[in-house]
């Protein structure tokens, strides 16, 4: 299906049907992006430019969000573990929570909010200027040329940022636990190896990768299907961020449930 054919929005049949058909077309774009990424040569320059752009708009906000996030988790868990008499596990618990849950989500929210909205606005403006149509008529696939590099860039930036957020968050947590709450540095570090294992790190990066993909695809989908005129593009940007957030939390739930089923916790 061409992007324009995808773009034909039908006069609302009934809400459930409309929602399903939107979902269907979102999936079909996601599939086409995957296929393009695997089978066709990457538009390298576009990719590098987009990678750089998304990274530059999201590194600072995510680092700034990471510190208080790490702190909140450390403080909360710090007092909780004291209550149930498991102080020695504060470090491990907060690091696990941070790496597995907080960090990928923070990363993805920042990427969707900063990078995704820019992708959506850019593609939306190109769509209403008929640039996308022109490209298709000139025999060039907009998915290959524009969408795939952006989605891949969002995915890689997500992985990278996830690492940054994890490190900054852990340091923040350490600082608050050890310096503010008077925890013992040795216990904080030692408990890592007691509870945490390598797959915890993997799932964190896998989540980040998938969230980056979702943020990129949703932004591109809404950008290629804006409403009428400049206002339509504005609404599309708004919706793309909201839809991404909703999808993220849902997918995060699925991935977490799956991971806990598949990978036995350490020591069991």
């Amino acid at each position, binding site marked *: 299906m061409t992007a324009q054919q995808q773009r*034909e929005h039908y*006069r609302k049949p009934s809400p459930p049907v409309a929602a399903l058909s939107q979902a269907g077309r979102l999936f079909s774009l996601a599939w086409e992006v995957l296929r393009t990424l695997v089978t066709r040569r990457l538009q390298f320059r576009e990719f590098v430019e987009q990678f750089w752009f998304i990274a530059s708009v999201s590194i600072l906000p995510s680092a700034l969000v990471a510190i208080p996030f790490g702190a909140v988790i450390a403080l909360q868990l710090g007092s909780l573990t004291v209550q149930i008499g498991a102080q020695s596990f504060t470090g491990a618990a907060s690091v696990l929570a941070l790496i597995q849950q907080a960090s990928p989500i923070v990363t993805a929210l920042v990427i969707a909010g900063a990078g995704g909205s820019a992708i959506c606005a850019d593609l939306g*403006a190109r769509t209403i*200027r*008929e*640039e996308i149509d*022109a490209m298709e*008529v*000139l*025999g060039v696939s907009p998915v290959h040329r524009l969408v795939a590099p952006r989605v891949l860039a969002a995915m890689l930036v997500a992985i990278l940022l996830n690492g940054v957020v994890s490190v900054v968050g852990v340091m923040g947590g350490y600082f608050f636990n050890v310096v503010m709450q008077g925890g013992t540095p040795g216990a904080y570090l030692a408990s890592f190896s007691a509870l945490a294992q390598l797959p915890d790190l993997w799932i964190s990066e896998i989540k980040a990768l998938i969230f980056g993909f979702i943020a990129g695809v949703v932004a591109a989908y809404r950008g290629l299907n804006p409403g009428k005129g400049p206002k339509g593009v504005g609404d599309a940007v708004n919706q793309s961020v909201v839809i991404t957030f909703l999808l993220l939390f849902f997918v995060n739930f699925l991935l977490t449930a799956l991971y806990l089923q598949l990978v036995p916790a350490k020591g069991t």
Partner: protein
Amino acid sequence: MGAEVVVEGLTKSFGKQTIWRDVTMTLPAGEVSALLGPSGTGKSVFLKSMIGLLKPERGRCLINGVDIVTCSERQLYETRKLFGVLFQDGALFGSMNLFDNVAFPLREHTRKSESEIKRIVLEKLDITGLAGAEKKLPGEISGGMRKRAGLARALVLDPEIILVDEPDSGLDPVRTTYISQVFLDVNAQIDATFLIVTHNINLARTVPDNIGMLYRKELVMFGPREVLLTSEEPAVKQFLRGSMDGPIGMSEEKDSATAAAEQALFEAGHHAGGVEDISGVPEQMQATPGMPERQGVRRRKDRVMSILHTLPPAAQRHIIDSLSPAEQHHYNVRQVWR
């Protein structure tokens, strides 16, 4: 020679809203045709259907034997190479300068060397009057220049069919005539089939060889220019005059109450707008002297004369009047109506 486009029974809807139905027409090879119609009648949708950007529900659109509506992605991709499309605002790629925009199709689809690409691009920019502007970005130039650059880009692959969406939008009447002249000159040079979508009356009356009009979700007529320009059809006459007096209303067609109320106003002396005298068939614009002869004009003469007896009397009269005595002798017709 350009390719012929045969449209048969084409129908397009979005959900329950039918845009137009049962559109049948043939764009004769190498001739310039225009499609008129009030805003929102689906002229742009029609163009997009012709190049497979939208899929009509019914009907066929044949180009060199390939049906754009039902063909495979592969065939669509191949057939699209025959087309040059000039979108409404030029649809230039905002991040590239004019040179790269015009070079884009060459770089994508040919293995030409950079020096050859440069030669072709500069030639097309020259044809469209943009020599010297190749370093400019689309955001930095006027709407008229963007359109001409879009035309230059549409021309680089030597298209057989050129589709133009509202060349006059955002241009003053003089610039509109200039760009029309470019169309005719390009047509003379490469003999491509043109379809120009417009609601500009001046352009419609003086540029195309054939004219059609979309109205009330249908193609009300399509044929040699003389047919539409001499038509007595109320909607056509109103459209050509640009007047409020007639069946076309502000948004859709008028209901009878509105029409009656307006009619009373006009009879009481309220000016219905538009120009009174648009009757007759003005002389057609021609390619600039020095250009090759437009082959389409010659072929059209043969074609129109062979279907002359099927045309309305007023159109017949104008066609015969426009022939030279030698041609009247050649086609064996006389000015009997005088």
